[in-house]
């Protein structure tokens, strides 16, 4: 019977945790917005995931964290960057993956994996390619379309409106100007999704584009984003329903690998495990 591993992805927007059981299968997952207090969110999701899996905290052998707040979790054994963890997570979801596209609220990351499944090259957006998710949130406000309907509606576009801007914020002003010129909402929306592609395509090409491509992160549930990517990349794009958990999964898997290398007892002296977190109540 192998170890119980918890992987926690402490992202700028959301914190997600998965539990790997002794056989390395995903036993449970949990997610909530990160808010401003990462350690707290991480602890809460740790608890919630374990409760969902119905395991005692003491049964947990190893905790690996990733994402923006990875270093802020006192009870971690190992911290890994989101690019490594998403790479490994995507590989778990789709074993044929060679290119991982992780699109979140703020950052877009491209990870190129070698055939042996190691991170070969990666690229992270600079300012101007940033904010894919946030950009869509703003667009949904200025077009008065609920966020989850953006994708479906965009797919109805017949004559997409090109939106050309290097900066997500100015692209947004451009959307507003298009609105004022009374173009059809679905056409503007399609253009908006396409403009995200414009901004991230150089990243993809610089990291190197090899099939299969797997999309992870918050935007996996947006059908228009997936379609636009397919069209631009000229290849199918893998999307798992739990694609946004790729980071947590990858962290957990790397944690397991590490645990197996180090053996049950050994733990890096540099990172003494703090006491298991008590479930905290967030002050209202």
């Amino acid at each position, binding site marked *: 019977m192998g170890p119980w591993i918890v992987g926690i992805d402490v992202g700028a927007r959301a914190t997600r945790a998965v539990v790997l059981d002794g056989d390395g299968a995903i036993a449970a997952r949990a997610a909530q917005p990160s808010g401003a207090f990462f350690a707290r969110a991480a602890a809460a999701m740790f608890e919630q995931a374990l409760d969902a899996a119905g395991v005692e905290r003491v049964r947990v052998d190893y905790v690996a964290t990733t994402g923006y707040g990875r270093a802020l979790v006192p009870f971690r054994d190992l911290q890994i960057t989101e690019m*490594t963890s998403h790479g490994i997570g995507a590989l778990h979801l789709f074993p044929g993956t060679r290119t991982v596209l992780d699109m979140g609220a703020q950052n877009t990351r491209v990870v190129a994996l070698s055939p042996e499944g*190691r991170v070969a090259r990666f690229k992270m957006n600079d300012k101007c390619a940033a904010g894919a998710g946030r950009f869509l949130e703003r667009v949904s406000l200025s077009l008065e379309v609920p966020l989850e309907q953006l994708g479906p509606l965009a797919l109805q576009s017949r004559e997409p409106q090109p939106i050309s801007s290097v900066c997500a914020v100015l692209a947004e002003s451009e959307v507003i100007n298009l609105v004022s010129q009374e173009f059809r909402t679905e056409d503007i929306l399609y253009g908006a999704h396409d403009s995200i592609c414009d901004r991230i395509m150089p990243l993809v090409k610089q990291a190197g584009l090899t099939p299969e491509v797997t999309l992870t992160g918050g935007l996996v549930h947006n059908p228009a984003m997936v379609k636009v990517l397919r069209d631009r990349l000229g290849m199918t794009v893998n999307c798992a329903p739990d694609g946004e958990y790729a980071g947590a999964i990858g962290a957990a898997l790397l944690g397991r690998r590490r645990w197996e290398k180090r053996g049950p007892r050994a733990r890096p002296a540099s990172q003494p495990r703090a006491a298991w977190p008590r479930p905290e109540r967030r002050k209202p």
Partner: protein
Amino acid sequence: MTHEQILAECREWFTDPDFGRLRALREQGRRLIGCFPVYTPEEVVMAARLVPVHLFGGGTMVEIDHADSRMQSFVCSITRSTFELGLTKRLAMLDGMLFPSICDVARNLSGLWRRNLPDHLAEFIHFPENFQSAHAVPYLRHELQRLEQRLTAISGHAPGPDDYRRTFERVNRWQAAVNELYALRAAAPWNVPLADAYALVRAGGMMPREQHLPLLEQALATWRAAGGRPQDRVRVIVEGSFCEQPSLELLQTIEESGCYVVNDDYLLGLRWHTAPLPLDGDPLEALARHILQRCVPSAVHHPGPQGRGAALLAKARAAKAEGVVFCIAKFCEPALYDFALLKRALEAESIPYLSFEFEEKMSTFESIRTQLETFVESILLFS
């Protein structure tokens, strides 16, 4: 002075927003000439009995305000912050500024300097781009002579052969010490923290060398004796910061993220000689020859037969580097152009590399740290 005091003293020279040390020097009667990166012929300045002060922008210590109203947002930070220092009279202790030709932005800055700071000498020095031409060395010699005349007008002392010999001797000694420092870091990086070594050399570009040399030699002795132990880190060389300089905090971030920086192109303008300056013959011609033939190349000045890609590969092999980190100043066109050529060379040899952009005034390094850590993980975790 203790080792710590030496380092603190060195940092003081370039982190004090009012440049107290420089003003004190001026009050002692020394005349100071500011040098914009990279290849400023400081030897001419020294020979004219002036103190060359290598300025590398305002770093994190100036808030850019006046310069922003005179420059567009796509101008690199070092240009804007240097201009800000000038406009806010914080460089009033200087008698002039030298701008060697490195890029169009720095060149135009020399023009802005002339108009906005009329009481300063603002001199643009044209370096030959045609390295093959038989006329290049004579031309540069002529250009250095022109510079000599302008500087003589300030110092009132026309440098003779002896001035140059003394200067060359001093520069050679200091260069030798700096070269040893770099050798030491390449051999045992765990003993020589990057940010400390950097601060030491950078101060040398501002202090009179004769004052700095003892500090440098004492620090060297300390580090030679240090018996630290290597950690599980990746040996890298850092490229792309030959002009605008990263903050000390960014330098620390690079090491904290699991790298040993075994060679770099920081402060290149202070240590570009690949050989000591000859003490006989025509000094200005010798200097011209050095700039054109015995010179560490960079994106803005690449003499010599070896192509840029080949030069980088040689550098990486010499330093036994496992990877190359391109730490390029935002909006630095020369470095950004070279990156496209250099990355191809590295890919051909399948040497891992990482590239990110920085600005001297940066205060958060989350994204850079993430990329560095991922780079380190991709080398350590999977091998």
